[in-house]
């Protein structure tokens, strides 16, 4: 239903809906169609010998899903875990990934004109994963191509091709 609604909004207005979240001082936006659900940070099982930003795996109704802490990955904000810590569960095609962020703020509709190309800057995030910058009521949100980011070898969430062979 929500998918249909979102698609029709996009079709009617040329707008796409985004979920915005904060990491430290920065605000990020991701395509809402990639979001499966938002839940608290709980019951994560650690996996040894992985980068610190991979927090481990959780049980999502019988499916075992890895969890990434974006604060650690992008080195913004402070990685504290309490009852307010939230996790965005992303559904990227065949894969499901949990992403820990500082807070989920809003759902916004952005038109293509509102997303401007990002300048080359020395951000924590490689510009190839940034779709653009969008201004939402005086604030700036970094629009991230979350699917590309999560499936990149940089994240190490998947067996690389070489390994699989």
């Amino acid at each position: 239903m929500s998918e249909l609604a979102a698609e029709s909004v996009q079709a009617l207005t040329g707008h796409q809906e985004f979920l915005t979240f904060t990491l430290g001082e920065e605000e990020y936006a991701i395509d809402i169609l990639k979001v499966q659900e938002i839940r608290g940070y709980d019951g994560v099982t650690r996996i040894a010998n992985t980068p610190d930003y991979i927090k481990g795996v959780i049980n999502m109704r019988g499916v075992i899903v890895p969890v990434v802490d974006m604060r650690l990955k992008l080195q913004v904000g402070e990685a504290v875990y309490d009852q307010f810590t939230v996790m965005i569960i992303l559904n990227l095609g065949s894969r499901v990934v949990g992403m820990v962020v500082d807070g989920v703020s809003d759902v916004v509709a952005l038109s293509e004109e509102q997303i401007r190309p990002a300048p080359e800057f020395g951000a924590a995030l490689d510009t190839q994963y940034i779709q653009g910058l969008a201004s939402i009521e005086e604030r700036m949100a970094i629009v991230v191509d979350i699917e590309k980011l999560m499936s990149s070898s940089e994240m190490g969430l998947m067996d690389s091709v070489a390994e699989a062979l």
Partner: protein
Amino acid sequence: MSIDLSQFHQVFIDEAYEHLATMESLLLALDLETPSLDDLNAIFRAAHSIKGGAGTFGFTDIAQLTHALETLLDRLRKEELHPTDVMIDAFLHCCDLLSSMLDVHQHGGEVDQARIESLQAELLHLAEGDEPLAEVSQPSATTQPATEASWLIKLHPAEDVFAKGASWEAINTDLQALGELQVLSELSEGQASWRLLGNPERADLEEIFAYVCAADEVTFTLEETGSQEETEDDLGFGFFIDEAELPAELDKLQAEQEDEQGFGFFIDEQSLPLETEMAATEPNKAATEKAPEKKPAKSASSGTAKRPATAAEASIRVGVEKVDQLINLVGELVITRSMLAQSLSALDPMEHEEIYSGLSSLERNSRDLQEAVMSIRMMPINFVFGRFPRVVRDLSSTMNKKVALKLVGEETELDKGLIEKLADPLTHLVRNSIDHGIESPEERLAVGKPEQGTITLSAGHQGGSILVEVIDDGAGLNRDKLIASATKKGVPLSENPTDKEVWQLIFAAGFSTAAQVTDVSGRGVGMDVVMRNITEMKGQIEVDSEPGKGTRISLRLPLTLAILDGMSLRVGDEVFILPLTRIIESMQPDSEQLKTVSGQGRVVHIRGEYLPLISLYKVFNLEPRFTNPEEGILVVVESAEGKLALFVDELISQNQVVIKSLETHYRRVEGVSGATIMGDGRVALIIDIEQLARMTQPV
């Protein structure tokens, strides 16, 4: 009005494959000395069912071949002929050919016509065999050339089908296409009769009339010049029979038909005349011999009545993914139940008695459900073993060896996934045993062994695993030859290798001691593939051999891939699962048992053995409760590289866990074979002991 028969083709083909498989296994099991009549009848029925179906759906080539097959079988089951090895070979070839013909009908392609014809001729030749005296009743019929046959067709529908839209011209045109047509009596009140010269297939004729009227409203009689009398005498389906007699005949046939296995959708009517008249319908000599017999169908039905019900008949086909889904769901249910149990454990049992009793019945039911669902996946190992009688027979004859196959424990059940993966490795092992293991009959006699070698395939439960063994009574492995071959190929080997180490050499890639490469084996590929396949199934291989006595290769496999009996243990805050089958013992060591090796690695001395000590908290990078092994627990486990002692904080409990893949959404993790969900909803990792052993090996 026409019915699209093609929609039933798949059903026919599936069933035909099943019948072929039945036939093949029965043929291979047939004792040539004292053939069981039941078995012969069962083979006959299978052939007959295929023929009936093939005729109905217009696969005339299949119908013809099975007819020839049936002719011979019919004589066998009536004990007019004695089965011979040659016949069995012909039957087996016939099965192969039929299955390739089915494949052609299903997917298109070419059938080797010459092969069909030669096989058909061979079968008929065999059927002629030693002609029993009482049966040679009609020499005129047996010598009659088939081309002089003609068909007498009589249409006598209950109502005027032509008035209802059937076309007189269309029928005539169709019939003319099959041969020279004479109209004997013109259409009147829907009745008509024809004589068709030439030699068309009965199935073709039936096809024409299938759309005109019901099968019992038209009769086809084969007339052969000189043998007309007998064919007309045949069970009463003919031109001259009084129509009033027909229903009585039909009833009788119907009763017999009920003993037959129901074939498909609307075959009953069509196969009725087929069953009784087939002998007369197809113009071949052997079949016409059967015609004068007044009650051929009677004897058939007395045989069919005794047919043993097999389990396969009461089964349904279900996609594997559906079963897997069911297993997953039940797994979820089990997890949910233990979550519920955990959160209710805080309640006072006295006050909440009903909840507790409900919970315990939920536990019972979900356990039963889990077992029932798991058993869907379980199949008897016979599904793999069943192919070996054929393999052994074929291979031993190509290699001029005499080999008997003994199957033990075929009913042992294991996971379907495993069964499928077991087929290839087992075939390799059996081929190897025949090629390298079993000696030629002369050699065997020379060393005082019976001429015929024996290969035993056995399966059985042992502990939590399935033990599958391939045992031959051949020459055994040659230790010196293996060592020499290993040195030549540069395979590393310790100075004074034990037998066990030497035997393991056969699993090295590219390793072969065969003097010459045959098309069966000797290229040195194979055993390493076997090893890899078995390891993939989380199984182990052991080889045991004695020169001159034989070789025994044992495969130890887990019962199932989906569920694991595990021991849960704690390290720091995390819970891990160890496969229970790998655990030998657990103990709390004292300081005297712990030794360090060159100040680095630690070993533990248990009953004369020094085992490497692995601290799980170090491997998995955790904060443990104890860093001193004396305070925690050591779990001694068995790996392919030997025993290991794992140091953990504490053991929690023994439980059955549902194995979940980490790779679906994440990736492989070193030292971990998978994950599971515990009663509290948390994920626990399942330790892969083999990987752990390799990870911690000093490089």
